[in-house]
């Protein structure tokens, strides 16, 4: 359960930092008036949807952290046989990176009010994400073709389930992206597009990060990094 506890401690640090600015040590019964003595509640400046997405990402993060915990507990058992990563995963990774970059471009474009750049970036991001998803399907096919089927070994099970869960999250994101793209044609004022584009970009960057974490676990880099950290500590 190391990875979920690690993830939760990061959340705990963020929560502590945030709470420390909320005057939790103040004595509310001594303070009257419409505002207590709290300097700049900057958190209010964000839109509810932005905060909502961040909380949602914490939930998704906790979901994957738990899956990774289960993975690392299960892999210690003797029947574990690591499966080879299909090379197409690297191409898929590039696609996901491109998709993320395109959305970042969309965000810059919407801030500058450049409608055409925005449209192009959104389309590019969508296409790259679709390419990623199809690539994942190809990877599944290749693996299954080589005999690494589901149920043959827990390592395969985890690979299919984790890629599947990641893919489903991306698919959900694509729905939001499609609606945003459609708005880019329909809504006249670019200010109204700013929020949805930013939300999509945040979500995409998160899924990219998540994908890199998963990839590092499958390639064994994560294990090596942990080992190095352990050695540094001892």
């Amino acid at each position, binding site marked *: *359960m*190391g990875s979920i506890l690690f993830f939760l401690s990061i959340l705990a640090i963020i929560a502590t930092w945030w709470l420390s600015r909320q005057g939790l040590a103040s004595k509310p019964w001594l303070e009257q008036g419409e505002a207590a003595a709290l300097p700049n509640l900057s958190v209010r400046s964000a839109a509810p949807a932005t905060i909502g997405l961040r909380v949602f990402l914490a939930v998704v993060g906790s979901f994957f952290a738990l899956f990774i*915990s289960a993975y690392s*507990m*299960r892999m*210690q058992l*003797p029947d574990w046989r690591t499966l080879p990563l299909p090379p197409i995963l690297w191409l898929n990774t590039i696609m996901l990176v491109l998709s993320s970059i395109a959305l970042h471009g969309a965000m810059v474009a919407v801030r500058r009010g450049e409608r055409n750049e925005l449209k192009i970036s959104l389309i590019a991001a969508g296409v790259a994400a679709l390419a990623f998803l199809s690539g994942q399907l190809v990877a599944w096919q290749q693996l299954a073709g080589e005999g690494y089927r589901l149920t043959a070994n827990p390592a395969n099970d985890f690979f299919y389930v984790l890629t599947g869960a990641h893919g489903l999250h991306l698919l959900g994101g694509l729905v939001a992206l499609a609606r945003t793209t459609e708005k880019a044609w329909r809504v006249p004022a670019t200010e109204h597009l700013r929020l949805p584009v930013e939300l999509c970009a945040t979500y995409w960057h998160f899924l990219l990060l998540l994908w890199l974490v998963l990839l590092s676990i499958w390639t064994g880099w994560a294990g090596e990094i942990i080992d190095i950290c352990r050695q540094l500590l001892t």
Partner: protein
Amino acid sequence: MAVALILVLVAVGSVVFHLVSPWWWTPIASNWRYIDNTIIITFWITGAVFVAVILFMAYCVYRFRHQAGRQAHYEPENKRLEWWLTIVTGVGVAAMLAPGLFVWQQFITVPDDATDIEVFGQQWQWSFRLPGPDGQLATSDTRLISPDNPLGLNRDDPKSHDDVVIEGGELHLPVNRPIKALLRSPDVLHNFYVPEMRAKMDLVPGQISYIWFTPTRTGTFEILCAELCGVGHPQMRGKVIVQEESEYQAWLQEKVATSFARLTPDTRNGAVVPD
């Protein structure tokens, strides 16, 4: 008034029930008297807190019940009082935790002279395996289970030749000798539980768990399964018969003579540990 009285009755009634009720733990038959002692300490501390809290509440309800002209006292907090209560609580908790951890250390440290036996639970019966004259158990594997090898013993293991297998029967143990029970299940979770021995542990398919205890008095005690294992769960019973050393040896000789337990490589999986 009535409310305060009933609250007092609840507190006093609980204490009286505790003292006079006929329902109490079974007379102990193992070395785990320490566990009973820790429970007694915990009863004293928690009982005192329970009575104090409820009586205090009853007093408040009586003394500060609404009456014409009463106004509540205004006092948002009292730091000193709260810190004192916190410290006292901390001390009380430590007074329960410390003996608990101390006894737990003993509970998981098996003495060197303990005899290994195997408790094998399956849906829904208990089987046992005792080491023969060599005093050692052979390795085993779930995949080796077959009609003529019901416990899946490794027959290539030389230690298997004298192992005594007792299927669905009674477990005989010598009195005053520490026993390390290795717990194994071929199907679902079970739990080896003898109320008089106080000890208890799950049998987990795919790994071998253990407990140890020393029976301290002779007699027959019931073995229960304490982990839900399907519809037959309540019927999964067995018996431990604790005997004097001489009687036990006589029984064991007879069993060795009639037993043909034969036994292969082992995959004793370690417990899964969270990383």
